[in-house]
């Protein structure tokens, strides 16, 4: 666990996100945003871990995140995404969706756009639980079971899918530019196609056994039909959305709710998940059958079905590794990335070689040397 520093920030952190780096440059990310929750005054903050401006004499403070700016946020920050280099979208527990603009010259934040009652019940507000963007489009979901589509710089709502769900929608991700996938609190994955009118999903998937509420979902960066989900029981599921109603593999990961799961954006053989039980796991698939490294922990695997259809294109062995999840061939390794005895890790983000996560212990952890 070398290279992990804890920074105590006096607020419980609900979301952490790296600012995207332009794909042409090979730089490591140096700026990230955090959102807080469960505070009387919540805020979103921008931090830097770069060398610029940090003149530290002690080695131990090198890379300590420095606060660049902060802005008050109404309600808990339930989700946060970077729309582009300058703008951040947040989902609030008051049901509002806000776009903040980060001004680099003055290092300040300001509210650029606000949809105040994006999610609501007939009589009061409903928390907005997830936001995902594909600039300039923004999709949000909430506990009211609605899906909203906005466009940055446009005032009104582009589209509303009313009564999309009878239970709370917890997370959303883009499958393609016109298709999204949502997960809800009765354990269903629903595919929505924006090209189709109406309020019906194009597909519903769920486990045949106990319907466990799902909290997070992430799509494989290269293969648009491979999706990972995590839920209340801490199990990691990998799905192939083209194929029927069952996940491809099911793995015991955490002992309580899994809050976020992320494929590494440039190295999809690596997956990261974090949970209420205070652990952050790094999952690694490898196509060689070497003996596993000593730091890896073996995890128990339950294989539901094997994929008989070879995926079209892409790195065959890596895809197969996720789909087969066969631990006996030494394909899957997991490593704990944080010290033990921690409160819930609510959020993580990984980009390049850098990982940032935030916890209920009011601390942020940054690791700049993730072994990828």
């Amino acid at each position, binding site marked *: 666990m070398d290279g992990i520093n804890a920074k105590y920030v006096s607020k419980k952190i609900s979301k952490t996100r790296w600012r995207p780096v332009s794909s042409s440059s090979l730089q490591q990310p140096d700026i990230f945003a955090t959102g807080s929750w469960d505070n009387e005054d919540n805020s979103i903050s921008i931090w830097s871990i770069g060398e610029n401006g940090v003149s530290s004499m002690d080695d131990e403070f090198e890379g300590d995140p420095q606060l660049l700016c902060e802005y008050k946020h109404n309600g808990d920050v339930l989700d946060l995404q970077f729309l582009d280099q300058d703008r951040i979208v947040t989902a609030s527990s008051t049901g509002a969706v806000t776009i903040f603009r980060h001004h680099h010259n003055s290092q300040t934040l300001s509210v650029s756009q606000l949809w105040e009652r994006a999610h609501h019940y007939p009589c009061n507000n409903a928390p907005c639980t997830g936001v995902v963007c594909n600039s300039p489009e923004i999709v949000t979901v909430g506990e009211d079971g609605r899906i909203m589509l906005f466009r940055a710089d446009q005032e009104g709502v582009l589209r509303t899918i009313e009564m999309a769900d009878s239970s709370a929608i917890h997370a959303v991700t883009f499958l393609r530019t016109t298709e999204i996938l949502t997960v809800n609190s009765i354990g269903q994955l629903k595919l929505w196609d924006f090209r189709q009118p109406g309020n019906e999903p194009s597909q519903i998937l769920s486990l045949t056994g106990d319907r466990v509420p799902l909290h997070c979902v992430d799509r494989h960066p290269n293969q648009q039909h491979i999706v990972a989900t995590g839920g209340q029981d801490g199990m990691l599921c990998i799905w192939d959305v083209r194929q029927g109603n069952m996940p491809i593999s099911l793995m015991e990961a955490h002992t309580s709710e899994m809050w976020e799961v992320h494929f590494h954006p440039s190295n999809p053989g690596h997956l990261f998940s974090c949970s209420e039980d205070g652990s952050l796991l790094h999952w690694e698939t490898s196509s060689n059958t070497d003996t596993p490294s000593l730091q890896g922990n073996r995890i128990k695997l339950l294989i539901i079905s094997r994929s008989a259809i070879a995926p079209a294109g892409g790195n065959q062995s890596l895809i197969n590794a996720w789909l087969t999840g066969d631990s006996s061939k030494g394909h899957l390794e997991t490593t704990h990335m944080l010290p033990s*005895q921690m409160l819930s890790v609510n959020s993580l983000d990984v980009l390049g070689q850098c990982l940032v996560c935030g916890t209920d212990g009011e601390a942020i952890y940054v690791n700049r040397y993730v072994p990828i």
Partner: protein
Amino acid sequence: KHLGFVWGPGDILVYETIYKASGGCPFVHEVRKDEDIYSPILRKLFNESHHIFVGLQRIREDLPSKNKKPQFVSISKNYRSVIRACMEELQQVAGIVSILLAVELIWNLCEVLFIDAAPAGSLVLHLLDWVRLHKADVDEKAREVLASESPAEHQAYWDVISYVLQGRMDEARQVLVKQAALQPAARVMFKLLDNLLMKMPIFNVHSPGETQTLTEFDVKWRHWREEVDHCLQDQSFASNRHLEDICKILVGDEDVLLEYKELLSTWYHFLVTRLLFSHPTVKPTELHYYAQSSMHMFLDTRSVPEPLDSILLAAFEFDIHQVIKDCSIALNNWWFVGHLTDLLDHCKLLQSHNLHFGSNLREFLLLEYASGLFTHHSLWQLAVDYFDHCPEFGRVYLELQIERVPLDTERKALKVIRICEQRQMTEQVRSICKIMAKKALRNNRLGSALSWSIRAKDAAFATLISERFLQDYCAKGTFSDLDLIDNLGPAMLLSDRLTFLGKYREFHRLYGEKRFSDAAKLLLSLMTAKIAPHSFWMTLLTDALPLLEQKEVNWPTTLTSILNFFLLT
């Protein structure tokens, strides 16, 4: 006007009142007694120390105590470094910094005397470290002096005596060498003093290949002291007042020491210096005598001792309970006494005497601290771990407090439920799930309501939800929330009504797909299984009629079964 008040868990609500009822809205004031927990910088203290606390509780009981002592000392140092980190950040806010300074001073002394339990010989050296740590300005001054253009002329030059008072002989010698260079006539005197300083014996248990016993050291030290005394008697330093003072300090001349009160600045510095030069082999049990006399000698007899002084004195007297008691009174937050007592308890230093209230001192203090945390809108999560480690009353406290946490979002409710589930607090789980389910039902979110009932395994509420669905069906003729009912899965079995709902919907689906014989079979089984509510019997019968017209359905048998059902129930 009168004032009324009512106690809350961590605060008081005070309201203005007039005895007779009249119009107007009175003000209600909230009086918080513990402002510290709302300070953003102190919050870091609470979070970091929580981490250390949990780690301490998990040290295995079965380790032999000699392996545990270094662990306890290191944990004590961790706590102190957290306090220091806080102090560095708080530099602007004077009030809290001075309290933290005092807290760290006391903690450090407790670590030296109780946890590390230094024996005679090394005791003085540990106390010397303690004093040096808390009088760090000596380093700064020395650097200032040496950095100035002509150090020997610098007024503070003679504060080199501070070095001597802290037992820092090497540094003192370095500075004296510079002075010697400017006064070649007095070179012999300087050389003599340098020699004495160099030869001062220090009790050193860690010198390789040499284990010195206390007696050996004592002999050596007395010998050296005689030599210094001899120099004094000889008037070797008579011409230079300052060098003579240094020499007198070396023999432990108390009057001279008291002349440098300003440099010592505190009575406990005076105490340690006194011990260093007069009684370096002092035993822990003898400390209190010297402590008391030092305090009396140093302080003005008319001045009232400050709380800090009595706490330190109690520590020197090894009266742990008095230390804890005085600290509890002097500080307004239970953080310090709670954590220190817990650590001392782990070191088995507290005799367990049961209090009338709460089980023992450690648990009482931790309960107080944690209850205070629970009133905070955010830090309540830390309090849970503290309650976990209070074996007698922790659970009860937690059960009472956890239900009062406000639940604004599903996510927060999930976290609270998880805490309760992990501790098998089923009652609390049920009640929280019921609150969330009712909220969802009020907002017409039947799916959410059902998912909460499933979590709580609340059959009664699941029945309620199914009735809502069925009522909706009767009113509108169609089902709402088909995505839910069609995909109930094993949750269907939670309650009879829910099962009926799922199966009834399935019947409609089969009918819609024109699978009439399957539909008929299902309808019959629904009737015979007796899970249909009475209000629905007419509906079922009405549904059965069109089936009888279908060719595949064996209508005589079906009709007989239906009639049987109605006649026999």
